[in-house]
């Protein structure tokens, strides 16, 4: 035990991302509970004694939070159509903006799925590198006051991703579902001046949505109606108009936020399964030669996507001149983020950082992404080395995995903010301890 430096104190690790919340035991290699961060809620219940026979609903949270008449979280939360259900996401640009749904979400993951009593387990939380002090103090308050944890720590996702890759010094490139960030980590500390992030994935998603909805010369504009609203459909040939009937009775009760959430989920799925990146930079001929990929939408419409899927992927690395002209405040591309981050770092560090590039986040799982990044980096830095785990779990939940490693180390247990310290020092202890 001592040989590996590990000492299990049955700590829990909770990693809240824009698309999903991961929770599990420290020392495990995979989170036990993965639930969507988006939640459904109803402000004005149509019926006062309306009861959903749903395990996802949280009666406790309902009583506490007067804002929501009802909140639906977990796998059966927003993805199930309910009349008048709105969908919200507590995170915006990677930061928690709305703390109301956070306790129900964490409670669902830990108490309902993992069946743990939070008062028995120290909890390690993660935060993005650009988190505000007020935010982490609020988080600590929630953990100590609502969940009664014995000990708490909040760690940086950039650092944790570096730890998950087995590095103390690294340049972490994290492409999530809404934010792309480049974090220089030195000796387990984030260089805040070198931290660069942009809402690039959001742009890619909006672009894809636009691309799909826009009719082209070969195909009509694609209807993204989610399957919850489709009564039945018939199989059709690729490219043919879909034949389906809508659930007319549901259309009335469908809220705009739910519709938006469901459609963007369809777009996300399309991106995840179809979009690719050319590994040697953009080349029209190469793109034309690539095989097209088949994809079917909930309406039954299916099509072979050829060059389109590479247009979308290219947005991570390059903005076309026309796009830049139309929108001057575009989020920076990944190469731009990297060069900005390096410019802000000490010249001596640049070589070290480029030798330890860690690629992480679910957004990097597009086919060819790692190869393309490596090509881009090698063009300017011949010694660059990109660490990109091949295991999708490791790539998607790198932050959680790093937290799992950190919280199971024997030497880490002196860093926990204990309940006693919290009561004695208050919020200031968070900033002091979690540097």
């Amino acid at each position, binding site marked *: 035990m001592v040989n590996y430096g590990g000492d299990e104190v049955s700590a829990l690790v909770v990693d809240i991302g824009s698309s999903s919340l991961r929770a599990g035991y420290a020392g495990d290699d995979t989170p036990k509970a993965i639930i969507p961060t988006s939640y459904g809620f109803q402000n004005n219940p149509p019926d006062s004694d309306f009861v959903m026979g749903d395990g996802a609903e949280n009666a406790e949270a309902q009583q506490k939070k007067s804002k929501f008449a009802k909140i639906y979280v977990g796998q059966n939360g927003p993805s199930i159509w309910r009349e008048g259900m709105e969908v919200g996401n507590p995170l915006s640009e990677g930061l928690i903006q709305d703390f109301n749904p956070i306790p129900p979400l964490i409670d669902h993951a830990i108490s309902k799925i993992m069946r743990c009593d939070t008062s028995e387990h*120290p909890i390690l939380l993660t935060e993005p590198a650009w988190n505000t002090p007020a935010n982490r103090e609020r988080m600590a308050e929630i953990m100590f006051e609502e969940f009664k944890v014995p000990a708490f720590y909040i760690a940086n996702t950039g650092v944790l991703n570096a730890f998950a890759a087995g590095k103390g010094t690294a340049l972490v490139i994290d492409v999530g579902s809404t934010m792309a960030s480049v974090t220089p980590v030195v000796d387990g500390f984030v260089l805040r001046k070198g931290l660069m992030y942009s809402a690039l994935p959001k742009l890619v998603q909006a672009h894809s949505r636009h691309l799909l909805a826009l009719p082209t010369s070969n195909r009509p504009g694609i209807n993204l109606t989610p399957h919850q609203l489709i009564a039945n459909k018939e199989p059709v040939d690729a490219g043919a108009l879909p034949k389906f009937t809508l659930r007319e009775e549901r259309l009335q009760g469908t809220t705009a936020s739910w519709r938006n959430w469901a459609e963007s989920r369809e777009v996300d799925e399309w991106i995840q399964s179809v979009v690719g990146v050319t590994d040697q930079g953009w080349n029209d001929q190469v793109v034309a030669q690539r095989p097209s990929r088949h994809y079917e939408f909930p309406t039954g419409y299916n099509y072979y996507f050829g060059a389109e899927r590479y247009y979308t992927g290219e947005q991570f690395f390059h903005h076309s001149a026309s796009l830049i002209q139309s929108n001057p405040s575009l989020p920076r591309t990944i190469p731009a983020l990297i060069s900005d981050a390096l410019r802000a770092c000490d010249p001596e560090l*640049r070589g070290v950082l480029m030798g330890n590039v860690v690629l992480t986040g679910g957004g990097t799982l597009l086919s060819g992404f790692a190869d393309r990044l490596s090509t881009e980096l090698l063009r300017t830095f011949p010694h660059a080395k990109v660490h990109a785990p091949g295991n999708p779990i490791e790539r998607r939940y790198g932050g959680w995995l790093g937290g799992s490693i950190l919280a199971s180390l024997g030497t880490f247990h002196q860093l*926990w903010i204990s309940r*006693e310290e919290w009561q004695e020092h208050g919020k200031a202890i968070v900033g002091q301890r979690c*540097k």
Partner: protein
Amino acid sequence: MAASAADIRSALSLPEPNGSSSTGYSAPKKHVSAATRKPDGISRELYSLIGPSAPSLAAQFAKPRLKQKPHFSGGASKVKWELRPFKNGARQDKLELRHWEKVTTEPTSDYPFAKYNIQSTSYTYSQDEYTRFLEDKEWTKDETDYLFNIVKEYDTRWYIIHDRYEYPGGPSRSMEDMKDRYYSVCRKLVRNRPWAGDEASRSQLMSSFQFDKDREVTRKKYILSLENRTPEQIAEEEALYIEVKRLEQTERKFKKERENLLRTLAGIDSGLPDIVEDDGALAGITSEVSGSVSTNAVTNKKKRKVGQVTDLDSPATPTAATAPATTKRPKTPSFDPHLCIIRVEVPSSGVATKAAHQPAYLRSFKLPTPKAAIAPKVTQALAELGISHNRLVMPTRETTANLEALLDATTALVDTKRAVERVEYEIQVLKDRLALREQNQSGDVDGSQAGADAEGENDDGEDGRAQSVVSVRSARGRKHQRRSVSISSVDTVSTRANMKRQKRS
């Protein structure tokens, strides 16, 4: 392999205790006892025929058993673990976390990871010290305090310190500024405080706080300028580098060709450093002498070489040739006494071939030895004087020369002594003979002559007789040979001749 009680019993042929259920290695024994009954599957007739003495068959009819479970823990008892609360010595509070521990471990023992919580030494200073030594017009005391706090907080990780450094109202500081201030303050504190240890450790500590700000800044500037090269500049640099290499190569080639030409035309008189004499022994050494050898050395060498042209037959001695070539020192004979070099003329033993070349050797290997014939006598003579000549404590040149002289003298002494003895003996013999002759002249003359000539004349007579015998024999043998050649081979002839000779003799 543990012997069970049943094994010991079987070894000592003791009876089995009744009703005891034996385990382990006693199992086969049990089968034998079971086989005394009629086993299932054998007819009674067959069993009565083969009787109980069929262990192989009986073994087959034994009941199948399950494989024995392996003992992974080597027979030790199960390890018990329990969930125990523990306190971490590295924490200031009373937080109790729980982890699983072996029941056998000491519950009160310290947390094993607490020892990794090491604190780096940090320097503090009083107001008095600050005003006396540490004043700096660039830094206020508050900012210095802030710097020392942040350095302590981040354990002198300068990149992080530089990243997190935010002193309100202060000017922006580069990492070099901070390092310079921190290390200069530390140096001043170490220098001005009373030091308990020795001076060496103090200066060592001082040198660990050494920081050259200008040098660091220049270094950073170089790194930056190296990074800021445009692709064109890099390409140009690359091209220039290749060009320089090419130029160097052509120059080298040209020089080589020129030397070759000179050597062919002028030979040794060209004064080239790597011209070899015909013995070739110096070729390997002198070609290593690079162009960096001072011109003085080269000219000296040239002089020496030119001087040696006259007596090419005698190659340079190892000491004269190898030592200057490797040490690259001026090598005129005028420096010899100063450098303790003694030039020894190798005895010109005729032709100077490669085989005649004498490699370097240890002087002690070439100690002179007396001639083998008289060696024991020389040793004896020296032993009488208490000198051991075959082992010199310090075989310097003088000592060796002295030893050689001594040996020569001893050899001469021994030789003279032998000559003296021989002459004395001869004189004695002749005196005796003279005395005998004078005695015999008075007695029988014939008898005395026979006795006196006994050594010489008698021998001659015998020889003459023997020769005649042999000649007669060989003549006869030859006759036989001639006769028998036609019959058989030479071998048989000779043997036959021998047999006949034996018969005859």
